[in-house]
């Protein structure tokens, strides 16, 4: 694996107050350079806090974060040169135009007037914002504002771009445009770290994923490997009229060739299997004798992975 651009070690964050809250509870993470890396988890899992610490906007209770080798707690101002951030909410400068938002961002990061003007024009073009250059951020739709935020965040050519819930509040079309914009960053050598609680987004966009819950990383791998860990390419959920004799049915189903696992679920059984001609027919025939009422077929998703790890739905 190539060099880690983001290195998080033993990270903890406790918010003290009336009820002290442990938002991040011992996270270790190594993000290899050049990837699109996702932190997937439900709201309140600690994703945003982790990103806040990594982007110097929160001080960790314990642990360390290094971005491109720079410790963000010891040298926040210098670490920021390697960091681009798109927070959850729109932080565009309302007093400046679309072009000025990018231009002044470049100036803050030390580009000369000529360089900043050229970079602004190039980014407006790349993110298809040129015709809105003189507009103010208030006049932009959610999707355009999000694109401008990404364009601004990468204007100083950071090594890592952090996106916090980038598709929250976007309509499906804008979401796809945003995904394309993010995928386009691969070619520029920018590593992307994003948080999301949308499985489709994690699956579609990310090269690797860490699933986070209650401030801890539960598992970390590629989306394909995570889904493969379920142990089958097909999931059949059998709804039964009664659950009597389900022990016998379970044993019988396990004898079918291609079935990898059978589990008891609420109101029936779940059969995990490899895709194979004729397998579904055998399952149905066998289950029918025991009072099969309904059957649903799904393929393993990150949602299934999350439920398997936590026993909860991601959207809960």
């Amino acid at each position: 694996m190539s060099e880690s651009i983001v290195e998080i070690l033993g990270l903890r964050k406790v918010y003290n107050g009336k009820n002290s809250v442990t938002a991040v509870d011992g996270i270790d993470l190594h993000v290899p350079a050049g990837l699109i890396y996702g932190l997937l988890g439900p709201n309140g899992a600690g994703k945003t806090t982790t990103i806040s610490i990594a982007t110097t906007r929160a001080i960790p209770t314990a642990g360390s974060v290094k971005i491109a080798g720079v410790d963000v707690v010891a040298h926040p101002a210098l670490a920021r040169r390697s960091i681009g951030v798109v927070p959850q909410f729109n932080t565009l400068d309302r007093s400046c135009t679309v072009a000025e938002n990018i231009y002044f961002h470049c100036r803050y990061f030390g580009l000369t007037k000529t360089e900043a003007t050229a970079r602004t024009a190039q980014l407006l073009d790349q993110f298809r914002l040129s015709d809105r250059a003189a507009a103010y951020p208030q006049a932009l739709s959610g999707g355009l504002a999000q694109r401008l935020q990404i364009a601004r965040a990468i204007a100083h050519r950071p090594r890592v771009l952090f996106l916090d819930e980038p598709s929250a509040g976007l309509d499906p079309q804008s979401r796809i445009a945003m995904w394309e914009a993010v995928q386009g960053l691969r070619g520029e050598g920018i590593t992307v770290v994003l948080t999301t609680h949308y499985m489709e987004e994690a699956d579609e966009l990310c090269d690797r994923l860490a699933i986070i819950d209650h401030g801890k990383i539960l598992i970390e791998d590629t989306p394909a490997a995570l889904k493969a860990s379920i142990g089958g390419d097909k999931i059949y959920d059998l709804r039964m009229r009664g659950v009597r004799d389900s022990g016998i049915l379970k044993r019988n189903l396990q004898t079918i060739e291609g079935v990898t696992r059978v589990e008891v679920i609420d109101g029936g059984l779940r059969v995990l299997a490899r895709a194979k001609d004729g397998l579904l027919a055998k399952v149905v025939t066998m289950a029918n004798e025991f009072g099969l009422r309904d059957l649903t077929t799904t393929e393993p998703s990150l949602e299934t992975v999350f439920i398997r790890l936590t026993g909860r739905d991601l959207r809960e």
Partner: protein
Amino acid sequence: MSNAVGKPSHVRWAIYSRAFFGLMQRDLRVLTREIVPFVIRVAMNPLLFLFVFTYVMPHMTGGSKMSPVAGMAAAGGGGFGTVLLPGLMAVAIMFSGIAAVALPLAQEFGVTREIDDRVMCPLPIGAVAIEKIIFSAIQSIVAAAVVFPLAYFIPSTPVLAHVSSWWFLAVVLVLASLLAGALGLTIGTLVQPKQIGLIFGVVIVPITFLGCVYYPWAALKSIKWLQLCVLVNPIVYISEGLRAALTPSTGHMPAAMILTMLVVFLALLTWIGLRGFANRVIS
């Protein structure tokens, strides 16, 4: 971007100063775009004050009796305009600090969270706040300069201004303007954004009326308790400093005391403001 940690400190300072001037440039661009509202904001209060109290009232029958400090002004020489000139400059300076720092901060900390972007500049957090103080001070100096011609042309009795030391005037003006910015920072970071509207009634009106703006501090000698109480009000030293620099004939505090207290309040409010700022942006 190259790794600047471990590089000589002048490299770091170059990074910081470029970010700092970038922020100044941005503020200047926004200000020049809103130059008309800015001029109206700084000119309206002194214009109307001078017009009513030093032009309209002296023209009324018995108007001089209505003038609140007629006797005092007569004793010191010059009309009420002479008392008002430094006072209105002090208000202009103070109000610019509020308008340039506290009010925008309430917006940036509040719904828009724009501050999160400014804070991501390659600059220590405190320097982002210091930039706000310095840019506000520049506006305060402009605001004070606007008062001067108004006070010269409007009053019916000429204002007796006399600058014996330009250095003293410059030092007072700079300290007062920075102090106003620091006051704006303190208010902007300590007051909840939702309650920023309240500060006019709770903070600005009291510190103005009890800030020796409309009367010299020495004239409070007949109300001793008040004369002592107002010493905790930083506006007093701004008014008195300008009085000592511009219209010494009306009487003023000792210059050394004025300068000392301006520095003390500047340090105190900057410290509180910077702490408040850091608490707001870093969790």
